[in-house]
């Protein structure tokens, strides 16, 4: 009964979305206030209905209702409760329902908090948001209905893929979706502005918080996925340039570009058409991401639930929204008169350079991702593109971006002085080069990647701090510290996010360059050296877990005779899913992680053991957290609350 209620609510939500996407749009065209006023309540109602539907599906998972096909293939009575709940979105149908729910929540947030938006713009934004809702609700109901009943329910389910039974991964999809779908807001605002034929500073101020929020969620989502891969897949890799990872990376890159170009719209009323185009592209890439994941056209290690019919449907959605909006763009972009003029050397130009580099970097990821598809379909060749290509073709643009970031961020608006920016950065430059040289001297005969990464990371990171310091004015001493505290949150957000980028750049290169690996056969009781450490395999025992059996090793890590950690790497077998997994044991540290993996028992006796020292691994996650925190700080800036109407724009988390 509850399940049918959920199903029914979903169908009703489709009807409501149809109303939301048509009548307000007509009303805005005719200037009919009553029709425009429909948009808000419709958006709220749609959220309520999809919410009911989502709750019903969650309930079915919690009580293990095996008359539902989705529950049977993704759950099991013995599974821990956390994973019963996360199993709701650990599959195609449920994850799409979550997608639609988040879409509806964003729409409802505009309806609830967008009181200060001009009525016409609000009606149009909500109508566009409603159209996306119609498309995805149709997709859900026609091709991927989670409420499909089985005539003969089995006694128990087939369990969720054991690799997915993990706290990090339980939260990974919701965050990514909050990000992907959050970009739909920027898209809806862009299309609404195209229909109105008007973009001004106020528009930039409305779009930016939504993009910022979406970007923060994407950052957290991607970092969670990367962290999961790091500790779960058993060899400390954190990024694979896999099509599905790229699918989330491309919108992330474009969201950064959009964030920065929207600043120019907001402050200088320039780059309007380009910003609109970016908003369309960013959401377009979210849809392409959904297409790549859901269709399985590009083979990926992530491919799990895919189906060509669904792919075609998403391709149609993608064609309709990006195609339609691009046509609209072509017709209306001319109306977007730029007001602010700027010199070749100016903050605006620096942000244009940022945008060009980010757009090109995104394009490189895109072409690398679809190239195997081009190979099969157009060239008749079987081609692969992997890490070596991306390292060679993508990295240069990131390096260029990192190089121009500190001086660019300090240039004045309208007309800047590059010499002055650079003079302010001389201490940073000296520090960065010194650190790089020091690292180069300390490492002997290793790749130059580590020192270069350190230099670049320090340049960006300390450059961000220098920028913040420069904003405190020209007086001496204490007064500047006092002013530091009074700087707007946006300044702090900018510095924090840029500093986080520096940390991330350094950590990535450190992990790639300075990783220590050891693979060997170890007898119980035997020790072996690992970098500055000594590792002893004390014993290996079988242990019973809640829904798995485990072969667990006890390993003691010592340094100069002092015990650093006792770690328990495991090999697990999940009998229901008939799947083995490896659980690495990690001693997290400030400067390094000790990462141990237990392999197989050898016929000659002893165990295969793989051990790694992962330098600065925690800095990578810290860098991502700092970037996200920077975004949140910017979101909490006063001007979004004051200038855009007191308390009206949500100060951060529009979706909860």
């Amino acid at each position, binding site marked *: 009964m509850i399940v049918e209620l959920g199903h029914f609510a979903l169908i009703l939500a489709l009807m409501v979305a149809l109303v939301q996407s048509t009548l307000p749009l007509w009303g805005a065209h005719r200037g009919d206030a009553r029709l425009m006023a429909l948009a808000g309540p419709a958006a709220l109602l749609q959220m309520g209905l999809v919410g009911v539907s989502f709750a019903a599906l969650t309930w079915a998972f919690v009580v293990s209702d095996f008359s539902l096909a989705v529950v049977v293939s993704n759950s099991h009575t013995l599974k821990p409760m956390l994973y019963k709940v996360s199993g709701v979105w650990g599959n195609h149908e449920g994850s799409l329902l979550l997608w639609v729910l988040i879409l509806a929540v964003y729409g409802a947030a505009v309806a609830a908090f967008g009181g200060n938006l001009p009525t016409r713009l609000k009606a149009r934004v909500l109508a566009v948001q409603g159209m996306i809702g119609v498309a995805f609700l149709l997709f859900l109901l026609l091709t991927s209905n989670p409420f499909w009943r089985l005539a003969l329910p089995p006694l128990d389910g087939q369990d969720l893929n054991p690799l997915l039974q993990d706290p990090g991964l339980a939260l990974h999809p919701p965050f990514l979706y909050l990000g992907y779908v959050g970009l739909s807001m920027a898209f809806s605002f862009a299309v609404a502005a195209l229909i109105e034929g008007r973009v001004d500073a106020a528009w930039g101020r409305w779009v930016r918080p939504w993009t910022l929020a979406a970007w923060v969620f994407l950052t957290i989502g991607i970092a969670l996925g990367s962290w999961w891969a790091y500790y779960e897949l058993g060899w400390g890799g954190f990024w694979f340039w896999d099509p599905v990872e790229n699918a989330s990376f491309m919108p992330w890159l474009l969201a950064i570009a959009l964030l920065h170009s929207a600043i120019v719209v907001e402050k200088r009323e320039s780059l309007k058409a380009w910003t609109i185009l970016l908003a369309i592209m960013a959401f377009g890439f979210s849809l392409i*991401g959904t297409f790549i994941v859901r269709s399985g056209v590009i083979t990926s290690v992530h491919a799990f639930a895919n189906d060509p019919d669904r792919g075609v449907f998403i391709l149609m959605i993608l064609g309709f929204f990006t195609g339609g909006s691009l046509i609209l763009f072509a017709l209306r972009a001319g109306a977007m008169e730029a007001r602010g003029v700027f010199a070749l050397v100016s903050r605006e130009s620096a942000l244009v350079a940022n945008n060009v580099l980010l757009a090109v970097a995104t394009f490189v990821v895109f072409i690398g991702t679809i190239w195997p598809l081009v190979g099969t379909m157009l060239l008749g060749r079987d081609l692969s593109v992997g890490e070596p290509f991306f390292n060679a073709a993508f990295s240069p643009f990131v390096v260029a971006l990192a190089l121009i970031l500190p001086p660019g961020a300090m240039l004045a608006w309208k007309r800047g002085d590059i010499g002055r920016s650079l003079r302010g950065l001389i201490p940073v430059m000296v520090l960065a080069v010194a650190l790089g040289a020091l690292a180069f001297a300390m490492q002997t005969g290793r790749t130059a990647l580590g020192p270069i990464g350190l230099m670049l990371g320090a340049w960006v990171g300390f450059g961000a701090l220098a920028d913040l310091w420069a904003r405190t004015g020209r007086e001496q001493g204490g007064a500047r510290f006092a002013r530091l505290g009074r700087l707007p949150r946006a300044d702090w957000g900018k510095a924090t996010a840029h500093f986080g980028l520096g940390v991330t750049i350094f950590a990535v290169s450190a992990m790639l360059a300075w990783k220590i690996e050891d693979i060997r056969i170890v007898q119980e009781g035997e020790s072996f050296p690992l970098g500055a450490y000594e590792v002893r395999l004390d014993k290996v025992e079988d242990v019973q877990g809640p829904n798995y059996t485990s072969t667990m090793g006890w390993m003691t890590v010592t340094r100069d005779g002092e015990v650093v950690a006792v770690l328990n790497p495991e090999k697990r077998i999940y009998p229901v899913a008939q799947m*083995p997994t490896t659980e690495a044991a990690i001693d997290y540290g400030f400067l390094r992680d000790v990462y141990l993996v237990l392999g*197989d028992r050898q016929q000659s006796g002893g165990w295969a053991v793989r051990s790694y020292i992962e330098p600065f691994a925690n800095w990578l996650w810290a860098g991502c957290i700092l970037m996200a925190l920077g975004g949140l700080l910017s979101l909490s800036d006063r001007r979004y609350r004051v200038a855009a109407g007191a308390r009206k724009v949500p100060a951060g988390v529009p979706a909860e």
Partner: protein
Amino acid sequence: MTAFPKRRWANCPPYILALFLAVTPAWAVQPDEILADRTLESRAREISRDIRCPTCQGESIDDSNAPISRDLRLIIRERLVAGDTDAEVFDYIVARYGEGVLFNPPAEGANLVLWLAGPALFLVGSALALAAGRRRTAPEVALSAEEETRLKEILKE
């Protein structure tokens, strides 16, 4: 949406899986594969990172657990021990498993499009941005002689 499971086991028929569990599951680089010669071994690792596992698509043979990846890793080491250069090893593998196993498509023929697309777009994008910038700054250019004198007059007043 990212980071869904490695397909290691997903596409295996159950009987193969059973075989795996009964015998030792193959593991990315096993201790018994490692060559005593450290230079050769590190060359072998470098090469394996650029070869895709033919049965599992998204993984390099260096990370993959598939039996065929183990075979390929052993072949690479065999060839290196026999004195092949890195290029010869790649050719040897491509001749047997097709160019689809190369993670790093060589920049020649149609693949040039892949390699040059980014730099080309960068040049076009920069040119467009510069052109747009010129246009934008154009109205600001110098005052005419007349305006100049008029300005001086005003300033004098």
